């Protein structure tokens, strides 16, 4: 039998598949489609210190093999998430990862600290790469010093392992990865969305109310694979890979590139069963390409 298990800081995953932050809400809707206990883990939608409404609509646009989104971190705030959403998710036999965001280091720290009170949460994903909010978010994600600082501050207050989610909108992704590793990150999560825009020909204006949005989906997979491949050679912490994962072959490609687990975002919108199906298909794909376990694959495609 193919062994799908993988062990990461704070996470004993039964398989390497998890929904990506923001693409699965807090799991309620998708729990109607299949049993979430099947998932390796679940990454929740971003939590901020207080409730946020987010950007105006339209918030999404379709692009070739992808989409743009500018949700703007809408969420009920960390307290409410701990009170109402985490308990629901803890009904399932899967690891809960909390994605945390903020406009200031203080906010990140406060959110991280709050999750210490939620024993059901197994790890934090530090979202320093959201391109869709005016303050914070991506600024932290493009400056290695700021990225290191927010990582270190969050590590100081948090009892949980911290996976830092990197932005692809940088000249040197390896530099960013090394900076947060040095600052104490337990793992990396990459990639977040590429900044993009679509202009509506009729209105002659950017289609999204926020003007720019984050590009996700299959279109960005080659960028994700390249960055994971490069970063995995220069850090010793594990990587949760994401960016366009749609098929079991994609999962294998991410693992070969050096990811230790894989998150699925946009593909959930096309196929709500996608994570469940990937988990079912993974053993035979591993087998087809001559692997007997997930851990066997990780980084095998990396050429130095």
């Amino acid at each position, binding site marked *: 039998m193919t062994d799908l298990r993988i062990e990461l800081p704070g996470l004993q995953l039964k398989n390497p598949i998890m929904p990506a932050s923001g693409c699965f809400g807090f799991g309620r809707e998708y729990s109607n489609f299949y049993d979430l206990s099947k998932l390796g883990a679940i990454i929740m939608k971003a939590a901020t210190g207080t409730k946020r*409404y987010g950007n105006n*609509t*339209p*918030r999404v646009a379709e692009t070739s093999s992808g989409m743009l989104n500018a*949700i703007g971190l809408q969420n009920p705030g960390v307290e409410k998430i701990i009170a109402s959403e985490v308990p629901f998710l803890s009904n399932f036999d899967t690891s809960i990862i909390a994605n945390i965001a903020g406009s200031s280091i203080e906010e990140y720290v406060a959110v991280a600290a709050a999750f210490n009170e939620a024993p059901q949460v197994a790890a934090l994903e530090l979202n320093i790469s959201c391109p869709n909010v005016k303050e914070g978010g991506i600024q932290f994600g493009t400056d290695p010093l700021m990225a290191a600082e927010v990582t270190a501050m969050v590590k100081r207050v948090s009892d949980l392992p911290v996976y830092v989610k990197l932005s692809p909108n940088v000249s040197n992704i390896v530099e960013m990865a090394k900076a947060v590793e040095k600052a104490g990150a337990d793992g990396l999560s990459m990639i977040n969305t590429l900044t993009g825009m679509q202009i509506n020909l009729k209105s002659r204006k950017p289609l999204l109310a926020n003007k720019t949005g984050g590009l996700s989906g299959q279109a960005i997979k080659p960028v994700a694979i390249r960055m994971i491949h490069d970063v995995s050679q220069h850090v010793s912490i594990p990587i949760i890979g994401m960016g366009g994962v749609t098929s079991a072959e994609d999962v294998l490609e991410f693992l070969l590139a050096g990811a230790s687990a894989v998150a699925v975002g946009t593909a959930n*919108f*096309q*196929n*709500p069963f996608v994570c469940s199906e990937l988990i079912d298909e993974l053993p035979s794909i591993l087998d087809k390409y001559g692997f007997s376990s997930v851990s066997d694959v990780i980084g095998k495609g990396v050429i130095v």
Partner: protein
Amino acid sequence: MIKKVEMLISQRRIIALDTVELTLKNKYISQTARPGQFLHILVEGHSLRRPLSIASINKVAETITVLFKINGPGTKKLSEYKNGMYLDVLGPNGNGFQIEEHDNTILLIGGGIGVPPMYFLGKHLVEQGKKVISILGFQSAGHVFYEDEFEALGRTIIVTNDGSYGEKGFVTDALRLVEDFDCYYTCGPLPMLKAVTAKLNDCSGYISLEERMGCGVGACFACVIPTNDHFGYKKICKDGPVFHSKEVSL
């Protein structure tokens, strides 16, 4: 509950200018869908599904009808699907129209591609013994569809923007032609909904909204609309697409 189903296209008809009617076969959705709900349809080559209102169901034939206007590349592609092909569909999505027992005469106001959900609703209301009056707005004579179908339900006023058929003007111009209704239901482009809800401010009414969608099931927060208490929000895909006219802020 929303399911992901394969639906056979059993009939495809062009029913007006750039307007296509698809009859789809599926037992589950035909038995469970309520007026106001929609299907979320995967179109080959497109990353996001397309939401389309259910225009009618036939429980015996186990079919669902949708009507759509060829708008951009996704609906263009969908218009090229042929009889016998299958569609990958999520449905039925959203909450349908709420129907108040005590309302007897009901005004339906549909504009353009907002007309289809009004038909499913109208049929349903008539089956429940209610009286239905319909005002349907279209761009021009060539765009008019389902006139006979609505006539069969009750008095029907057709309005065209250019006056090439029926009354000239907007659906709001035709409101003076009707009186004595207990409640209205409307679906159409945002400017129309704004005009209708403003003009019928004193009446009880329900509106069906459109917004660009990601997931279509309530997970991605793409399709929110602020509630009128300036405090909360609703998800159009999950809490809607139908809302009470006073509930949300257009």
